[in-house]
């Protein structure tokens, strides 16, 4: 018989306001096995834990039931606490009387009654708990970074510098990501490529880093410390080792002059040849052939690039290659894109070439961009004298047109854009329509104020209702100045839309392969919003950059470093403690029928001939054996097993049955 202690947490008033905590204590005191019951304001606090430890020692407790918040929140805390007092951590059960009781019920009597039932179920379960020991599994000392933008680059460099091998998989032909498209970066106005390019080169030359550009992750199996990842290296049609990056092929590609293929890198503001490097500083400096557009691949004719290539690097026969690599940890750094603006017809983005997005503006201001850094209107190539910026286009929307969140970076980059334009062309008139200017960050508000005070950028609080192209080629912006309570009709030359950011499209597929969870907006979910912000709830998966949520470059780089530390912390271990809640086979009952192995997703079940001895049995027969390092504790085998031989430790048949019984009592 267990000696169980029950500890009921008030969680301040979070629980106590709706659940009569004292009454719960009184009612569970006489449950079978309970020898001690108490309540406390905050069980998870130092003092609360001390109370638990003292009670374990004083009452010689063999099991604990904590009635508190969700076990997903503090089960670990209380297990560690039990361990401190010399109790096996798996002798702890948590009754969730906050998220699943006090927070959702209003009636005090009803909530108290439910809390008691939940506590009883947990007590009944603990009565059947047995001490469990964690096992061990080896760690492959290599990390995979999915995405080669600034987030992925920084994570990779930090891990590689710590002495571990890292691979980066990047979908595009070059690493660099979104940041490589930018002109300058806030709040210090460094040139983006001046600070990014050296890092790209460093990645390329680092002995611990392997780059898989123009590649995609195709499949992931395994688990923390032991992932097997299938990577598709798309056919580049150019031999990486032979190419010198001279650029001859790009210059001679006949499609380059025809101006038909919009450059993805330049957001369609200029065109590119069919054989191309996305931008001059691309890493690796090896072009790819866009087979969908290439004349040779479409008709079998042309072949100019192969003919003129001085190092004979062009290879039309190249095929996709699939490699499988083992990793101990995976970092998702898939970044972001901006939303499609088709649903915002009122801003005339599709109607007028002079209504552009902020990323397009970055390209227009970039010295290596389509206009050589000279700001001009795409319609008539004239320099705009008046520019209107519209903030929150698709951000902070609660309907399906946009995104419910704040994109976080727009206020700052708009101030940046305004100042850069004013710096170059001081007589430009700039108006920013904003809802709120959000500048929490070091030197951020100062930066924004500079735009107003020093550069005299006109900030108007209010949103634009419609952008109205005029017959004379100008744009009429119809908006509101909320502080003046006036409708504004402003004639301008160019409108720049701060379109909402969104996670890159492919992230859903990747998250599914990794069994990492994503939220309603397709941002990857962290294991804990505050305490484990760079880890996915799935062990061994880490998060870096915009894939997790909107953030700027400084924040991305910090997060990348944090993710790297977590990865290094994992790879530094030779063995990992494994979840002891694994399946276990009782050979007395096992028929060796193989049903369990058929449903095991981890290949953790094998069969061997074992000597089985018991009442009336003494024979050698085929029985199932579970590999504890491979078993992840899903329990699929236990429900498939016809004879009930398979059971799951920590969630055993008897434990769950007894929970059912006590709930239905």
């Amino acid at each position: 018989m267990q000696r169980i202690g029950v500890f009921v947490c008030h969680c301040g008033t979070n629980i106590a306001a709706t659940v009569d905590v004292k009454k719960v204590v009184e009612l569970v005191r006489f449950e079978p096995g309970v020898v001690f019951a108490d309540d406390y304001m905050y069980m998870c606090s130092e003092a609360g834990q001390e109370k638990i430890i003292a009670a374990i020692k004083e009452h010689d407790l063999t099991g604990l039931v904590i009635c508190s918040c969700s076990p997903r929140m503090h089960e670990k805390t209380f297990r560690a606490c039990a361990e401190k007092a010399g109790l096996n951590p798996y002798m702890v059960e948590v009754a969730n009387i906050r998220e699943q009781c006090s927070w959702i019920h209003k009636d005090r009597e009803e909530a108290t009654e439910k809390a008691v039932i939940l506590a009883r179920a947990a007590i009944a379960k603990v009565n059947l708990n047995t001490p469990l020991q964690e096992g061990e599994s080896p760690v492959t000392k290599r990390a995979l970074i999915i995405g080669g933008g600034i987030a992925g680059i920084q994570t990779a460099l930090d891990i590689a510098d710590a002495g571990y091998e890292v691979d980066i998989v990047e979908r595009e032909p070059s690493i660099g990501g979104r940041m490589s498209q930018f002109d300058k970066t806030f709040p210090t106005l460094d040139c983006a490529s001046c600070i990014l390019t050296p890092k790209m080169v460093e990645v390329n030359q680092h002995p611990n880093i392997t780059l898989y550009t123009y590649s995609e992750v195709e499949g992931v199996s395994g688990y923390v410390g032991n992932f097997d990842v299938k990577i598709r290296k798309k056919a580049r049609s150019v031999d990486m080792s032979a190419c010198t990056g001279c650029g001859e092929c790009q210059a001679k590609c006949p499609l380059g002059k025809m101006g038909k293929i919009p450059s993805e890198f330049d957001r369609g503001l200029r065109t590119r040849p069919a054989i191309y490097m996305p931008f001059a500083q691309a890493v690796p400096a090896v072009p790819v052939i866009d087979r969908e557009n290439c004349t040779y691949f479409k008709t079998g004719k042309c072949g100019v690039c192969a003919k003129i290539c001085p190092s004979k690097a062009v290879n039309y026969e190249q095929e996709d290659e699939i490699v499988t690599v083992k990793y101990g940890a995976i970092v998702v750094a898939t970044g972001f894109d901006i939303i499609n603006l088709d649903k915002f017809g009122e801003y005339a983005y599709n109607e007028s070439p002079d209504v552009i997005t902020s990323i397009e503006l970055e390209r227009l201001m970039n010295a290596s961009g389509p206009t050589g850094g000279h700001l001009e209107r795409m319609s008539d190539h004239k320099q705009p004298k008046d520019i209107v910026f519209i903030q929150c286009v698709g951000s902070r929307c609660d309907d399906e047109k946009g995104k419910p969140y704040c994109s976080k970076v727009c206020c700052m980059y708009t101030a940046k854009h305004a100042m850069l334009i004013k710096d170059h062309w001081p007589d430009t008139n700039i108006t920013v329509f904003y809802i709120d200017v959000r500048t929490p960050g070091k030197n951020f508000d100062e930066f924004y104020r500079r735009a107003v005070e020093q550069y005299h950028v006109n900030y108007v609080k209010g949103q634009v209702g419609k952008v109205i192209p005029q017959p004379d080629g100008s744009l009429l912006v119809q908006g509101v100045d909320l502080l003046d309570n006036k409708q504004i009709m402003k004639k301008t030359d160019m409108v720049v839309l701060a379109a909402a950011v969104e996670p890159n499209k492919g992230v859903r597929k990747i998250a599914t392969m990794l069994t990492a969870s994503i939220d309603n907006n397709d941002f990857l979910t962290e294991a804990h919003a505050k305490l484990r912000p760079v880890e996915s709830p799935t062990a061994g998966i880490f998060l870096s950059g915009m894939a997790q949520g909107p953030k700027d470059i400084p924040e991305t780089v910090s997060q990348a470093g944090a993710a790297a530390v977590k990865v290094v912390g994992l790879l530094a271990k030779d063995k990992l403690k494994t979840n002891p809640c694994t399946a276990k086979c009782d050979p007395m009952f096992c028929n060796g029928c193989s049903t369990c192995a058929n449903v095991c997703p981890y290949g953790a079940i094998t069969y061997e001939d074992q000597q089985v001895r018991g009442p009336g049995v003494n024979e050698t027969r085929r029985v199932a054996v579970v590999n504890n390092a491979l078993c992840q504790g899903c329990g699929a085998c236990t429900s498939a097993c016809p004879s009930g031989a398979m059971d799951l430790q920590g969630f055993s048949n008897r434990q769950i049955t007894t929970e059912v019984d006590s709930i239905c009592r």
Partner: protein
Amino acid sequence: MQGLIDRLTALLSDGTVARVIGWKKGDMAYNPEPHMFETAESLKDFVYDGFCGANLSKMMIEASKLEGKTAVCLKPCDTYSFNQLIREHRVVRENAYIIGVGCRGKLDIEKIKKGNKGITSISGTELDGSDDIKIETIYGDKNISYKDALLDRCHVCKGKDHMIFDEVWGESKDTADQERFAEVEKIEAMTPEEKFAFFRNELSKCIRCNACRNVCPACSCRKCIFDNTKFDAQQKANVVSFEERMFHIIRAFHVAGRCTDCGECSRVCPEGIPLHLFNRKFIKDIDKFYGEFQAGKDPEAQSPLTDFTFEDIEPGERG
């Protein structure tokens, strides 16, 4: 029948097999028993006629562990069970010498007894017998049609082919002449109240004699889950009541996707509970939801319950 005995005797004598699993004459004409014959001499009591309904495949589980091969007589429908046992690693194929015995349907003695009191002997039930069975009773002789006396299960016969065998003895006949799922559909059409009343009425007859479990070739667990206390809390009373009430449902679920619909459960039930109605409901659902599946037809085929497709229907959706 003598031909079969001769062949079995030869197999035993030349050492091909060490023993024979077949049927032994009972004390009445209609109750032969499954039996393991160890010597050629003992085969004089071997019998094979219309009353040999028992599915002998399950006996091979124990026989597989014995030295030497065992000859086992399997009717076409029994061979499905045998395949299923191979799939589950319960029998060793190499240790069996399968005689696929012919079958023209097996007889239900209750049907014969109905209206025929005081039976003294029955004849004409052999495989090569006539279309009529001759019954002698203390009140006089009578002929009834073989077909009319068939077991219910034979009216939904799975076919005359043996799924697995080493040699075949005798001709078989497909006796199916009824809709397999007609009974299930009848229940499905009832109101919840009627359904409950129907099953309560049937299940309340159960005396928990375990005859169904013992005869079922799919119920071949070394130790039955119902003998496992691991599903339950300490109180034995709970175990008893839960098991008592849920036994047949759980049993049906455990054999779902593995049950070949051999019908032995219903045949042996002393209370006449139509137990096959559970199994057949699962078979019907599996066929409907996941495509036609016959357990034991192909020993390589994945059981529907250890398989899935991404597009499977959602629970509760009526297909």
